[in-house]
């Protein structure tokens, strides 16, 4: 059934109320400023209290175990108010990686702290274009990590890193202490105010217990979970920008009538509504498929990330246009949604990247 059950509806409703209260857009405006950490430690603590940071952590490790659909619902609600928090890096990426590929000891060490929002664990995957690909090679008895990673979400405040690295036995995820010798980083600010880090690893010593035994499968699973949750986030951004735009269309008067009465705008609003509806449907399919372990999950995720990314970009751009001149001002929120949509759409593969994967999986 492509519907939410009672528990999921309850989670969504309580998240909507909680996020609106603890993390309104005014809070986003404060946190995006270049001074400061770019997120609220108080809100992150709230995530721990509410069980949100433990959404992908099983109950044995102190989590709430709501699963990937639960994570998607939370990301969608947080996106509605442009929330800046370590939810994606830590509660989604790190928890998914450890859950799918971690050893019992690694899980025991990190999952309870993630569930309690007592640690920030960043996921370093994107190799810097033109930079060094990240490799871990054996120099007995330990390994050495070399390379560069970009777009490490919350990498500027991470207590631990999970780094994807090539090895002689294929790709692996490896836990790295950001304070270890040979690790250096630079903080960058993205167009939506989000902080990421660029990391450089030069001869960083890692022992065999730092590797997540799950290997390449754990990496793929983690990427798919992140893509689906980002698709849900993109849906939340587009839905909220559109909801606010509809209100504006019903208020704003020109030529002695409400502008929402003009057919040119009504039809464009209709198309935007159809785009957000389809984006959410595709995303719901992907989130459910990841929870149920369906064979189609990778395909469903590619469809969802492609559709939601394109819809979020197009719909937020339409929303800005429908606001007219005030849409271009920083004082109106609609431009903030446009920027956030672009970031959610681009991270972990944009619309074109995933449409290309869809075509390949369909055999052309």
């Amino acid at each position: 059934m492509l519907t939410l059950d009672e528990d999921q509806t309850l989670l969504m409703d309580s998240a909507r109320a909680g996020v609106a209260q603890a993390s309104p857009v005014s809070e986003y405006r404060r946190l995006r400023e270049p001074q400061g950490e770019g997120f609220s430690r108080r809100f992150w603590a709230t995530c721990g209290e509410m069980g949100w940071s433990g959404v992908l952590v099983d109950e044995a490790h102190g989590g709430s175990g709501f699963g990937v659909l639960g994570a998607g619902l939370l990301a969608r609600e947080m996106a509605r108010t442009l929330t800046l928090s370590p939810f994606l890096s830590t509660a989604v990426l790190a928890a998914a990686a450890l859950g799918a590929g971690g050893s019992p000891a690694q899980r025991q060490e990190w999952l309870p702290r993630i569930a309690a929002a007592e640690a920030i664990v960043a996921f370093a995957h994107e190799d810097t274009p033109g930079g060094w690909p990240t490799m871990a090679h054996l120099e007995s008895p330990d390994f050495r990590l070399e390379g560069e990673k970009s777009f490490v979400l919350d990498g500027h405040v991470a207590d631990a890193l999970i780094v994807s690295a090539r090895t002689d036995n294929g790709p692996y995820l490896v836990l790295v202490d950001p304070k270890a010798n040979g690790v250096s980083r630079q903080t960058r600010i993205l167009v939506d105010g989000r902080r990421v880090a660029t990391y450089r690893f030069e001869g960083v010593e890692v022992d065999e217990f730092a590797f997540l035994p799950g290997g390449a499968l754990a990496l793929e699973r983690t990427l798919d979970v992140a893509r689906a949750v980002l698709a849900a986030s993109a849906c939340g951004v587009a839905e909220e920008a559109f909801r606010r735009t509809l209100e504006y269309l019903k208020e704003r008067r020109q030529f002695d009538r409400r502008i929402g009465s003009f057919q040119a705008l009504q039809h464009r609003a209709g198309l935007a509504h159809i785009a957000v509806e389809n984006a959410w449907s595709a995303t719901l399919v992907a989130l459910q498929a990841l929870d149920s372990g369906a064979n189609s999950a990778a395909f469903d995720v590619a469809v969802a990330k492609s559709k939601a990314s394109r819809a979020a970009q197009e719909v937020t751009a339409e929303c800005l246009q429908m606001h007219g001149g005030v849409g271009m001002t920083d004082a109106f929120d609609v431009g903030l949604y446009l920027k956030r949509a672009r970031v959610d759409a681009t991270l972990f593969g944009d619309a074109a990247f995933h449409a290309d994967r869809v075509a390949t999986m369909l055999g052309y």
Partner: protein
Amino acid sequence: MAIDAHEIRNWLEAECPVEMRAATRGDEDVCWGGRRWAFQSPAQKLWFERCLARGFTVPTWPREYGGAGLSRDEADVLYAEMRRIGARPPLTSFGISMLGPALLAFGTPAQKAEHLPRIALGQIRWCQGYSEPGAGSDLASLATRAEDKGDHFLVNGQKIWTSYADKADWIFCLVRTNRDAKKQLGISFVLIDMATPGVSTRPIVLISGKSPFCETFFDDVAVPKGNLVGKLDRGWDVAKYLLTHEREMIAGGGSNLFDSHALDKAAAQVRPKDPILRAKIAEAAVDTYAFDATRRRYSDEVARGGELGARSALLKYDGAELNKRRHELAMSLAGADGLYFDGNREPGVAEGWLRSKGNSIEGGTSEVMLDIVAKRLLDLPAD
């Protein structure tokens, strides 16, 4: 009564002829039924009869009317098993997809008893008389009139875009019964036997070369009062209910038998070398899967007690526009070979492309659908 997926699977394996497990290539493969119906193959006849015996021509209708009395969930099990082996529908008709649901909701017991079993049994083929030369998108301005003559109505006027009127046995029609009322409030919904004196049809040749539509003329046609469905002058309520079903059907690509994933299959065979064409097909695939997900989601929400309502306009708009887009791409994929139109080639690509242009016109134009989405779903103001 619970339906057993395992039992259904075995039954289908044993009873569905192999010839009936291939995709329909066109109208010539569809079992329509009707007074003048001749089965197109022994397998088609066998499959129809076997389904009929179990009420599977209309699985969700009550048993007393020839159905199997299945709930929606149970019917979904049956449909899923049928899809699994690619089984064709045993019987297709506007009686099943359009009139039947309207009669179940609005018909008198006598009307249900008279018409529903004959639809289920494939004995009567129905067509729909809505549009007129002067009433297209503005359907409520229709002018075909039915005068009260005591025991019957006298019907005069003309309908257009009547699908398969030349092959149909009966027509369900919107007629004006009150010229003084506001236009939506003077319309009634009547059933007319096409064999009644004064009814005539003329096929319309389309750009595809085919003639699925007709003009239908009514010249002093006497219609018994008992053929009025719903209340006098309130036929618009029945029509709106029925349009919802028509829009769902068109949204499903059901009106022109195009498999929404046929483009992907063709692309996998041809493997387009042009990266721009490949990208466009890939985007259409993404949009098709996302749209399929929306249809499933709405259907699941309705099954859990919601109402589809004006969302049928959203589905109709998007389904029609997507279908047109896929057919344009199918033509591009076929390249110059897609241009042959002389019978010496595999049929389908050009005809399908030309036929698809009607998707965003029939059953309410795309522009009317967007009006409905804006006003009914988004609550945008009229002024």
